[in-house]
């Protein structure tokens, strides 16, 4: 009797789990275009857009550089010193973690973090280095000042 009940519970769980897993796997890229509207996401589990990894890579590349300013001199700051989390088995900075942190929408919080972290500098400049096509023109790169933190 108990075994039967247990198996029923397991069966219900397995069905729900499989439905949820596959729904979240295809929701963003397949179901939403199909229905033409955003569909609800299951909170607390599953990535926002399915199991995507390096699924679309092109010839453009960009990264963030951070400069500390002191008495009209600029000093480039090693991004590993900005966030000191030393991940095991890989380099978080190479994964582009600074790009997300230093984006325009985070500018206030990021500047606040820099001021706390590097007290010696008067100001900080956040630069974006951009390669429009690093295959055809590997040395053609552009730099853009994203924002300054202000003194």
């Amino acid at each position, binding site marked *: 009797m108990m075994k039967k009940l*247990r*198996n029923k519970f*397991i*069966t219900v*769980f*397995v069905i729900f789990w*499989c439905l949820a*897993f*596959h729904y979240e*796997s*295809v929701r963003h*890229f*397949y179901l939403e275009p199909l229905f033409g509207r955003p569909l609800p*996401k299951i*909170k*607390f*589990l*599953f*990535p*926002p857009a*399915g*199991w*995507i*990894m*390096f*699924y*679309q*890579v*092109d*010839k453009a*590349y960009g990264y963030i550089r951070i400069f500390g300013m002191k008495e009209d001199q600029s000093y480039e700051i090693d*991004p590993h010193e900005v*966030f*000191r*989390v*030393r*991940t*095991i*088995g*890989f*380099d*978080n*900075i*190479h*994964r*582009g*973690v600074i790009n*997300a*942190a230093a984006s325009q929408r*985070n500018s206030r*919080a990021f500047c*606040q*973090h820099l001021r*706390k*972290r590097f007290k010696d500098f008067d100001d900080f400049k956040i630069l974006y280095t951009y*390669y429009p096509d*690093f*295959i055809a023109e*590997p040395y053609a*790169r552009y730099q853009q000042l994203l924002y300054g933190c202000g003194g």
Partner: protein
Amino acid sequence: MKKLWDRLFLEERPAIGLSLFRMVVAFTVWSVVFPSLVHLKELYFHGSFRELNGNFFPIWFLELVQKSPDGLVTAFVALFHISVFTLFIGLFSQVSCIAVTLCCYYFYALNAFHVSTLSWDILLVTMFLMCVTGYHGDYFSVDCLRRKGEKPWERTRPFFVQRLLQLQIGFTFFYTALYKVSAQGNWLTDNPLFYVLNYPAPGVTKMFLLRDIIRTMPNLVYWSGIFIVIVELSIIFFLFLRPTRMAAVYLGIFFQALLFLTLDVPATFFFMFPAMLLLFIDPNEILTWIQKRQRIHQSSDRPMLLFDGSCGFCKWSVEALKKMDLFSILEYKNVYDYLDSGKNLPAGLTSDHVLKRMYLVENGTDAYGGYIVFRRICWHMPMMYLLIPIIFFPGMGIVGPLLYDLVAKNRKCLIKSP
């Protein structure tokens, strides 16, 4: 249909593979979360730079967690350290797993910045499945030493958790490949792998051997990419087909090792996926292999462990050793079997010797007593492998025997003999 469903999810099989996987999960979670806890003030305390994941969490939950005082953060850090350790050693396995998962959710909601990756989401899905039952505490655990029953590795459980984990990894590969060739993926129409290999510094590619040669061969790289997609798309079928299963497991492990060596992507893939692929090995086959090894050892001249059968603590320890002795390496003998029958003890031992400490007799002639016994047997019992660094730690040759003698002297006070 019902028969197939039963075979897939409800059939009872040993949970020994799942138990080993539990240790891998605990280590993997620790490897991701621990580095972020080193700089608590910078990452999690009040006023730290934070990123909130509103896609993953409902807003009310994020708001609630953001109100945490620093003391609560510290309490969660302590809970994480304790529960990840107890999960690893398998003490209250299910409760520990739930506690670790709660801590993971808490830190993720507090600041998603460092942990928020696809691999982290995969890890959380895995953790959720591991929380559903405590089957993973059946072996390689303190729980199995606490429970009654002689052969914990033979205990059978419904297979559904392991099956769902198999499906999870199989479909993760499948969908990863599907996105590369459909939706917005460009692995068929372009050469993304070639671009990844040629990223300017800092880039995401590690400085691996042959990188400079491979990155100049776009055609080779393109077809390698196509090969990767084909493998990812088809591996789920090869994993579930018995004749191709082991080849697919090896291929999957090789693929993860390659990923780890060449790209700066979270090591979670490298730590967890190979172990997850090994879950495709049928636990019944593992059990058959164990039993075969046990029969081989039982029919040969095994080292004999002599213990004091009148002491409750000694009997409890021997019961624990028997559970750890997965391959039946040892023969366990109560010294009173010799003393009461007037038979001579082996290897020239006397009653004075054997009533003071336990002895291991090898080849019928070589006797080792006390702490040395642990140093001899730890190489043969998989459950003791993790203790090897402690047993052989510099200085343990002096401290170990002292501790052993202290326990041996007071053994009758530790657990009363029934």
